[in-house]
């Protein structure tokens, strides 16, 4: 789950981090008032779950309250990478001397958190990573000890020469690690971390992603979810425990297991069709999950056919079959269903389907070919 900049900054502030001030505005009038409070000039930043906000025109400098209102009205409602901006963050303009980068995420290879820092922060950090990788310093953190003080100092010393700046940056790095671990994040990033002309080090941007698997035990973090920023199908899928991604095609897909679900989408394309979605009903499914999955898929008017590809392991085919039958009864499905069921309790499943007048094929290629044909 991604947090907005202002939400991440709030978590940073709670950890005592030096973060620039700022408040959220939902309309131009609020933006004007905030700019006035910040002394007339302000930076207006789109709050949207997407990178490249600046390059998309979602970050603007205003030199008067009127300009702040004008920029806010331009940015609010703007679409960035398909996401509509509903709020802007209004912050005072800082006197920036340098821009650095500090990020921490879980490293797959090292199986531990890894810090990445660079004195060359700012909007082009990915280009720096690609063209001048030596400019980015990495440090793996032993989870048993966490980020030790000398390590935080060592990271900060990669960013600044001045001992005063290094000390401030070391504190911020330490606080970032605490926020990262303390909120079950998978990624936390400050870009840029600035030093001001006056000699202060400040986080003026913040990005954080929370590990979805952490949310069950962190209600305060879970409450930060911006339900308005996602489609209702996504909300519905999440509450049913389904992994769902909407796509542009017309072949609805309901599969167990992410790998098989992706392979099914690949096969739909292979046979000349277009998948309408990625949907993994997960392991250990109960019939209710299948009903929820069908409700979500059928709510997409583009869907011309629904294909089930179930290879039972921990998922029992009979559970899925019961869910299909129940869903057909309960919500009435108007598009054709094509079903493939193999594996655990397959015979039981076939009997359940047969009683309801449904049949299942045995292979993935058969069911996908059938679905693609019916979608034409």
């Amino acid at each position: 789950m991604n947090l907005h900049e202002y939400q991440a900054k709030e978590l940073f502030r709670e950890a005592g981090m030096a973060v620039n001030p700022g408040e959220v505005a939902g309309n131009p009038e609020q933006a004007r008032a905030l700019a006035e409070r910040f002394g007339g000039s302000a930076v207006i930043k789109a709050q949207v779950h997407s990178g490249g906000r600046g390059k998309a025109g979602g970050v603007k400098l205003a030199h008067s309250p009127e300009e702040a209102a004008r920029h806010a009205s331009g940015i609010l409602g703007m679409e960035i990478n398909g996401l509509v901006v509903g709020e802007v963050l209004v912050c005072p303009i800082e006197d920036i001397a340098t821009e650095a980068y500090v990020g921490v995420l879980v490293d797959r290879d090292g199986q531990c958190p890894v810090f990445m820092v660079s004195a060359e922060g700012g909007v082009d950090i990915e280009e720096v990573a690609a063209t001048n990788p030596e400019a980015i310093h990495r440090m793996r953190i032993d989870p048993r000890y966490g980020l030790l003080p000398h390590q935080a100092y060592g990271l900060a010393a990669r960013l600044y020469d001045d001992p005063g700046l290094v000390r401030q940056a070391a504190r911020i790095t330490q606080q970032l690690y605490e926020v990262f671990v303390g909120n079950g994040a998978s990624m936390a990033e400050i870009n840029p971390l600035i030093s001001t002309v006056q000699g202060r080090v400040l986080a003026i941007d913040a990005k954080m992603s929370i590990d979805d698997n952490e949310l069950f035990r962190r209600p305060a973090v879970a409450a930060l979810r911006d339900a308005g920023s996602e489609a209702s199908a996504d909300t519905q899928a999440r509450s049913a425990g389904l992994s769902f991604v909407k796509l542009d095609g017309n072949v609805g897909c309901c599969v167990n297991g992410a790998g098989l679900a992706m392979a099914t989408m690949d096969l739909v394309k292979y046979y000349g069709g277009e998948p309408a979605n990625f949907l993994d009903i997960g392991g250990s499914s109960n019939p209710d999950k299948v009903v929820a999955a069908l409700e979500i898929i059928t709510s997409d008017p583009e869907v011309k056919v629904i294909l089930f590809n179930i290879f039972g392991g921990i998922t029992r085919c009979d559970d899925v079959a019961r869910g299909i039958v129940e869903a057909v009864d309960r919500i009435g499905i108007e598009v054709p269903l094509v079903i493939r069921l193999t594996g655990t309790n397959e015979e039981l499943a076939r009997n359940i389907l047969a009683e309801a007048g449904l049949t299942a094929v045995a292979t993935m290629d058969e069911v996908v070919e059938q679905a693609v044909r019916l979608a034409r």
Partner: protein
Amino acid sequence: MSIFVDGTNRVVVQGITGRDGSFHTRQMMAYGTRVVAGVTPGKGGRGFEGPDGTVVPVYDTVADAVAETAADASVVYVPPAFAASAIMEAADAGVAFIVCVTEGIPVLDMVRAHALARDRGSRVLGPNCPGIICPGKTTMGIIPGRMVTPGPVGLISRSGTLTYEAVYHLTRGGLGQTTCVGIGGDPLIGTSFVDCLAAFAEDPDTEAVVMIGEIGGTAEQEAAAWVSANLDVPVVGFIAGRTAPPGKRMGHAGAIISGSAGTAAEKTRAFEENGIRVARRPVEIAGLVAESLR
């Protein structure tokens, strides 16, 4: 032969009384796996009845189970909130091989669990994996036993159900398996492609290897490089997720650490550059293996 496990392992099931744990314990016992103990905190002293009426003793802790039954391998079917701690408990009790089926464990929990398992010298398979099956000998996890058959192919996969798909076609094509290993779909897993490849390289009965990868991370590239440097038997690959849309990414950290390496195109290229033939559809895997064995 088989890798990591053979028919002699003495298996303890963590979460044996749960819905999934009890169902799959019976399946494992029916296949011939020596399940010697179960663990469910608070249910110690009970018995768990296997498919043929055998009663497996249930203990409160893994340490008790190991002390009483000399269990040396474990399968974890514990809910996500407690699974990492179950893995650590098994490693602390000296269990050498731990299969964790559970999906949805917080990643930072697994950072700790993997670190502890490494310290104790335990091998973790998974989490979020279907387990391991040595056809005709033993199974640990949830891979349906009836779709495998003994033979010369070793199989390694990140995905559960896609593993079944591939094995199903191998078996139908008359290509049996030495061992099928599901290494798990999580970002942090205890046993990698390379660990499995190294084990297959030592197994004289494995004459070909199938590697099933998917988008994300760089494990397939590392495996491909290892194959070309170290492995003498032919390898056939498959990568799921060619058509997956790029996720809506936040922040730069992910891109800085792995660039575009996680895409299906990059992985397929790494496979092919290292002499691994890549199937376009799961159904083609068996055919490519048959050709490579000729």
